[in-house]
C-alpha cells in the first residue's frame, strides 16, 4: 500500500512492522497510585501489590466505601492539568520530540469534578470562586491548558466517554496516523480520586466495601477508584524511522464497538467487547491464539467481569483458555477516563519486559478454566502480541493490540 493511501487494509501476515502507515509508540509517561514512571509500575502493578487505603484526600466517613488507590508522595500532581503535563513531558522526552507543536493532542478526562465541587461549596458558603480553577470543570479547557504548557499543536480534543475515554483517544490517534492526516500525535488520559465521583459510585453501590478489588474472583464485590494518568506518543513508522526514533512497540490493531444493550449492564455475552477485539485482530491480521497477553478491563463487578470473560472467549476463539489474562485494577484501582491509557502502557511494559502483571486478590476464579488467569504473582512470558481492552457505561468498548518491537 502506498504511504499516502488514506485507508490501510488489513495487513495479513500478522505484522505491522513493514507497513507504510503503521503506527508505533515512541514514548510514554505514566502515573498511578504507586507513583510516577515505569519503575513505580513494575514495583506496584507488576509485583501484584494492592495500594488501597482509607481515603484522606476528603472526608469519606459518610460513604459506604472508604478506600481508594491514592498517591500521597511529595511529587503528587496537584490537579489533572499538572498530571497531564507531567505525563506528557515524560512521553515527549522519551520520544525525543523536539517540535511538540506539530503534534495534535487527544486526552481522556472527565474534567475536574473537584472544581465543580469547590464552586458549589463556595457558592453555598457565600465565598469567592476561583475562576482559574473553575475553568477546568470543562474537559476541553483542562486539556487545552495542559497542551499550552506542553507547547502541543492542534487539534486538541478531550474525550469524555467515561471508562473508554483514553482508549478511544488512542484509537483515534491511530486513525489519524493511518489516514495520513498527521505523522504523530500525543494521546493521554487523566483522573485523580475526588469526592464527586466517589460519592456517585458509592451511591450506585458500585464500590467494594472490603477495601480490596478482586477482579474475576467469585467473591468480587465491586470496584475501587484510583489515581491515574498516562501519555503516549504515537507516530507513523516512517516518521519515527526518518528521525531515528526508537519504536517501543507497534499498534498492530484497534477496534471500537457498542453493545446496543443496556445502559448500566454490559451485554451478557460481551458482544460489543468481542466485536472490538475482533476488529483489532482483523486489522492486524492476527488470530486470537497468537495473542500472548490480555490486559482485561476487569473492574471487579459481578456482571462486568462475567460478560468480559465470555466476550474474550468468543473473540479469541478456540485457544482462548490458553491466552494469559489479567486485570490490573486490583493494583491500580479504576482510573476511569485514564484507565485505557495507563493499561496500554502496562501492556507495553509486559511485552518489553517479558513479564505479565497479575490479577491481585484472585483466589477462586469465576468461570474457572475459561481463560488462563495470571493470579497474584507476575509470570514470565515471551509475548509478541498484547491486547488491552476497556468498556464503559452505555456499553461502549475499545481494544488496542500492541506488537512487540523486533
Amino acid at each position, binding site marked *: 500500500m502506498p504511504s499516502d493511501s488514506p485507508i490501510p487494509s488489513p495487513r495479513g501476515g500478522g505484522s505491522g512492522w513493514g507497513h507504510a502507515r503503521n503506527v508505533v509508540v515512541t514514548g510514554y509517561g505514566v502515573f498511578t497510585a504507586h507513583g510516577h514512571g515505569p519503575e513505580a509500575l513494575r514495583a506496584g502493578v507488576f509485583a501484584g501489590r494492592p495500594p488501597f487505603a482509607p481515603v484522606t484526600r476528603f472526608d469519606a466517613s459518610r460513604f459506604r466505601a472508604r478506600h481508594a488507590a491514592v498517591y500521597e508522595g511529595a511529587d503528587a500532581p496537584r490537579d489533572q492539568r499538572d498530571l497531564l503535563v507531567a505525563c506528557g513531558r515524560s512521553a515527549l522526552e522519551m520520544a525525543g520530540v523536539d517540535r511538540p507543536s506539530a503534534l495534535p493532542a487527544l486526552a481522556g478526562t472527565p474534567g475536574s469534578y473537584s472544581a465543580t465541587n469547590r464552586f458549589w461549596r463556595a457558592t453555598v458558603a457565600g465565598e469567592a470562586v476561583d475562576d482559574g480553577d473553575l475553568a477546568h470543570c470543562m474537559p476541553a479547557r483542562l486539556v487545552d491548558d495542559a497542551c499550552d504548557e506542553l507547547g502541543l499543536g492542534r487539534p486538541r480534543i478531550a474525550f469524555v466517554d467515561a471508562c473508554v475515554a483514553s482508549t478511544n483517544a488512542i484509537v483515534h490517534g491511530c486513525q*489519524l496516523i493511518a489516514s495520513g492526516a498527521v505523522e504523530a500525535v500525543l494521546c493521554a488520559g487523566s483522573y485523580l480520586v475526588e469526592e464527586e465521583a466517589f460519592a456517585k459510585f458509592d451511591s450506585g453501590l458500585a464500590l467494594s466495601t472490603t477495601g480490596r478489588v478482586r477482579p474475576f474472583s467469585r467473591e468480587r464485590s465491586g470496584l475501587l477508584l484510583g489515581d491515574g494518568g498516562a501519555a503516549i506518543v504515537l507516530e507513523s513508522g516512517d516518521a519515527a524511522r526518518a528521525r531515528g526514533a526508537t519504536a517501543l512497540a507497534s499498534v498492530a490493531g484497534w477496534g471500537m464497538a457498542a453493545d446496543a444493550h443496556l445502559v448500566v449492564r454490559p451485554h451478557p455475552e460481551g458482544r460489543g467487547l468481542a466485536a472490538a477485539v475482533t476488529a483489532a485482530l482483523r486489522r492486524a491480521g492476527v488470530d486470537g491464539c497468537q495473542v500472548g497477553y490480555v490486559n482485561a478491563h476487569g473492574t471487579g463487578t459481578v456482571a462486568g467481569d462475567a460478560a468480559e470473560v465470555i466476550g474474550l472467549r468468543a473473540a479469541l476463539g478456540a485457544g482462548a483458555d490458553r491466552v494469559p489474562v489479567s486485570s490490573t485494577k486490583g493494583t491500580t484501582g479504576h482510573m476511569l477516563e485514564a484507565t485505557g491509557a495507563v493499561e496500554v502502557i502496562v501492556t507495553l511494559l509486559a511485552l518489553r519486559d517479558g513479564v505479565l502483571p497479575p490479577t491481585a486478590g484472585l483466589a477462586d476464579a469465576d468461570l474457572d478454566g475459561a481463560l488462563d488467569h495470571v493470579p497474584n504473582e507476575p509470570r514470565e512470558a515471551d509475548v509478541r502480541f498484547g491486547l488491552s481492552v476497556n468498556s464503559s457505561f452505555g456499553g461502549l468498548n475499545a481494544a488496542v493490540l500492541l506488537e512487540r518491537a523486533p
Partner: protein
Amino acid sequence: MTAGWQVVAASAVLSAGPLPPVPGFAHSRFSPLVREAVRGCLGEPGADALHGRPGDRTAVVLGTGFGDVTTHDLASERLANGLLPSPLLFYQAVPTAILGQLCHEYGITGPVTCVSALGDVAESVLPLAATLVAVEELAQALVIGVELAPSPRTVRVAAGDPRVLLPRTDAAVALLLRPGAGGAAPGGAGAEAFGGLAGLARLAEAPEDAR
C-alpha cells in the same frame, strides 16, 4: 481531515419546552434533549431508521462543551449541603449513558465516542467523524451536538474565555452524515442561538442543495 458530507437526515432542537422523558434518566434535560434530537433526525426506531445502512457500519460521535451540567451540579450542590447524591445521578452522569440507550433503541453497534470541545463543536466532531468513517470503512456517522442552557457555573466559565460558546437555551443537533461532496453550509440564519453548536445547526438547517 476535511471532508464534505451528504446530510441524510437532520434535526435541531432549541427549546426550554417539555421533552419526553427517557426511562431510567431523571432530573436533567441533557439525555432527553439528546434523544429528542436523534428522534427528529432518525425518526422512531424501526426498520429503516438508519436509512438502509447496517448498525455495525454506523458510528456515533457526540460533541459538547460541558456535558450534563445539571446532573453534575445537582450532585455537587447536594454534597456541598452535606447530602449524598441520588444513585440515578451516578448512572446518567456520563454522556455514554444516553448513547448506550440510543444504540440499544436503534441497533447501532459501530464505534461510539464523545468529546468536549472549545469553540465551534463542529470543528472538532466533523473531522473526527470523517476520519473514523474513512479509516474504519463505515457507511455513515450519527453526529450529535448537545449543550444545556447557561447555568451559573457555565456562565462564569464562559465569561473568562471567549472560546466557550453557550447556547441561548437548551440546544441539541443530530445529523446522519455520509461522505459526500458537500461543502460549508450557508443556511441556518438563526444558528448563532445554538452557541458552540452553531456549525452543526447550520448544517442541519441548510437547504438540501447546499449540503
